[in-house]
Structure formats: C-alpha cells, structure tokens
C-alpha cells in the first residue's frame, strides 16, 4: 500500500500496517489498518488524499466547485493569513490555474494603481518624481519614468491595459526561473520547477496592494518575498533556512541589490555630491 509520512510528507510503499519508521526521514509513524483511520493517541498518518488540506488543491484550483469569486477571495485570504496551509494544499499539476491567479491579481492591481496615480494623484506624486530626478546618478532614469507615467491619453491607457498582463506573465516566469535557479544551485529544488512556480504564483497575492499608489508596491513586494520563502518551504518540503536562502540569493546576486537602490535614492533625494 502507499503511505505518506506526516513529518516529511514523502510518499512511500509499505506492505504492513502498524508502527514503523519512515524510510525517508526515519521518524516513527503509525500506519492504520483502514485507510483514513487514525488510532487514538497515535501520530496521525496521512494517506494520500486523506488529509483535507494536503494537495487537495487551493480554493482557486477548486473554483469550479466553489465559484470563481469565492475561490479567488479565499485564496487571497489564505495566502495572506494562512500561507502554510495554502501552499501545502497546492497541486503542482495546476500550473495554468496558478498562472491565471497571478496574472489576474498582479495585472488587475497594477492597472488600477496606475489609473489612480495617473488621474487622481499625479499632482502629489509628480513633485516627488521631479525631486528624485533632480539630482543623483539615477536622475535621468527618474525623469524618463516620470515622463512615461504622465501620459493619460486613450492610446496610453489601452496600451497599458493590453501590455500589463503580458508584462506580468513575463515577470512571473522570470521570477520563477531565477528563484528556481537559485534553489537548484543551493540544492533546495526537491520537487522541480512546478513547485517553485506554484510558490511564486500564490506569493503574488499581497501584490493586490499595487492598487494603492505609493507605499502599496513597497509593502506588497516585501510581503511577496516573504511569502515566496514560505511557499518554497512547503511546496519543495525543505527547511526554512534553505527556502529563505533560495529566495534571497537572487535579490542579492542577480537583481541589483535593493540596498544599493535605497542608498542611491537617499543620495538622490538629499542631493549629495556624486
């Protein structure tokens, strides 16, 4: 019979019931006589599919039975408040659904945030852009960004609406690929790209905060990085240290150190000599 260890969650084959050790992690467990029956006082044993949360699918992956809106909302709430449970229940064969969730969440929130910023908040954010662009090595870049985000023509809005999902799709796969590469290099990719992608996709839930211009993107990004670590830990069944290292390594090595950016922005805002 097939059995699953409640400690390491690896599935293994056994020909007897009762107390025994997991062949993978060597921890003791009890295989019940009847599937799904957990003896009193014994360590709970999980038959594949017997636990209500393990790889049953997230609410979004079960949206056919729950309804799209309820499934989406429950997934967001779980991602934000009970990420461990969400990532444990993620099915790795539902890549298309996970892509849809991330594109819908990030694309929608980004578009709403951009609209709010361009049409209602520009008079307050524009001076900030100009101040940042006034000095520093990144000055010309900030000025170009300010000019690009000032456009409120119909053409610009349509272009933004069309290109945002595509940009989110590219960003999602780039993020997953870089994170997976880091996990592979650190020996933490135990269950393949599908597991990394699921973690990255559902970790996008806090990016709903992109709809809040200004601080939303900063808070959402930081939260997403943390959730990606939680997600990697659960989907790859690895330790918290390995998961954290796999998530942070790309930011340190590949993605242009965030601290350098902060330092630079601080220098630009204060107009320090270069």
């Amino acid at each position, binding site marked *: 019979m097939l059995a699953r260890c409640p400690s390491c969650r690896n599935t293994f084959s056994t020909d007897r019931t009762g107390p025994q050790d997991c062949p993978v992690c060597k921890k003791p467990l009890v295989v019940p006589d009847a599937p799904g029956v957990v003896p009193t006082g014994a360590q709970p044993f999980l038959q594949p599919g017997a636990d209500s949360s393990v790889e049953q699918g997230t609410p979004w992956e079960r949206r056919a039975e729950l309804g799209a809106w309820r499934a989406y909302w429950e997934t967001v709430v779980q991602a934000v408040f009970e990420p461990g449970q969400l990532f444990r229940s993620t099915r790795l064969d539902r*890549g298309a659904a996970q892509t849809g969730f991330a594109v819908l969440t990030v694309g929608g929130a980004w578009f709403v945030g951009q609209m709010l910023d361009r049409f209602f908040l520009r008079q307050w954010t524009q001076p900030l852009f100009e101040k940042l662009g006034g000095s520093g090595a990144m000055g010309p*870049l900030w000025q*170009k960004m300010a000019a690009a985000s000032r456009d409120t023509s119909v053409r610009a809005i349509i272009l933004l609406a069309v290109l945002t999902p595509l940009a989110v*799709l590219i960003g999602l796969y780039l993020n997953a690929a870089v994170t997976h590469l880091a996990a*592979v*290099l650190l020996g933490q990719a135990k269950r393949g*790209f599908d597991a990394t992608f699921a973690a990255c996709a559902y970790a996008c839930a806090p990016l709903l905060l992109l709809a809040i211009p200004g601080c939303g993107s900063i808070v959402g990004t930081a939260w997403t990085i943390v959730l990606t670590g939680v997600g990697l830990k659960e989907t790859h069944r690895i330790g918290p240290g390995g998961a954290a290292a796999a998530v942070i390594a790309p930011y340190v090595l590949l993605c242009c*150190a965030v601290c350098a950016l902060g330092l630079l922005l601080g220098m630009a805002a204060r107009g320090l000599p270069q």
Partner: protein
Amino acid sequence: MRCVVRSGPPSAHALGLAAAGFSLLMAAAVLPLDAPPLSLFACPFRAATSLPCLSCGCTHAFAALVHLHPLQALAANPLGALAAGAVAVHVLWTALRLCGFRYAPAAFPVTRRVRLGAIAMLALNWAFLILRGRP
C-alpha cells in the same frame, strides 16, 4: 545518456515559458535600446558602485542575438547570450511540439558537480563583466 525522450504535448509551464520567452525576444528585436521602455532598465547596482551586476548586459545580449550578432551578444554578457539562445531554442521546440513533434529534452540529474559548475560559470561571467567594464 539520451538527450531527448518521447513526450506528449507541451505542459502549461512549457507554454508559459515559451510565451514569456517569445515576448522577450520580440521586444529585443523590435524595441530600440536607447528609448523607453528598454532604456528604463538602468541598473541601480552599477549606478551606486560603478560595477556591473550579474545580469548587466543581458538586454544588449538578447538584442544582439535576435539581430544575429552572436559575438556582440557574447561580449555584452556571455551567460545572457547563452540564455537568449536557450530561450530561442525552447520557443522553437515548443512550437514544434504544438505541431505534433513528440520529443522533449531529457531531464538530467543536478548533481553536486553540476551545481558547483554552474556557480563557477556565474562567477566567471561576473568577473568577465567587471574586467570588461574597467577602463
């Protein structure tokens, strides 16, 4: 060891990666490097430290490769050029699989030696970028 194995149609992730990769290659082919949006990809690490980051030059590498200038691509960022080539191969292979080609690249075991080799390649690539950028 076999390099290809029999396979069914491409998975959702193979399609997603191909779509993202195709978009990147098209953007590199069509968009000018010195105008927004590509010119907005400035590297804050380089601006702060005057040293290139690991991915500096990748935009130029992608653009050079899709314009069939492989040497320029390698000079911009060797690993970036290899990544661009890998993306192009994946896009073409996925398109073939969508058309009925039933073979996929075989997975290879990621041993400790492979991981160390990859880390060494990243380090060498970074060293190349830093040395190339020196006056």
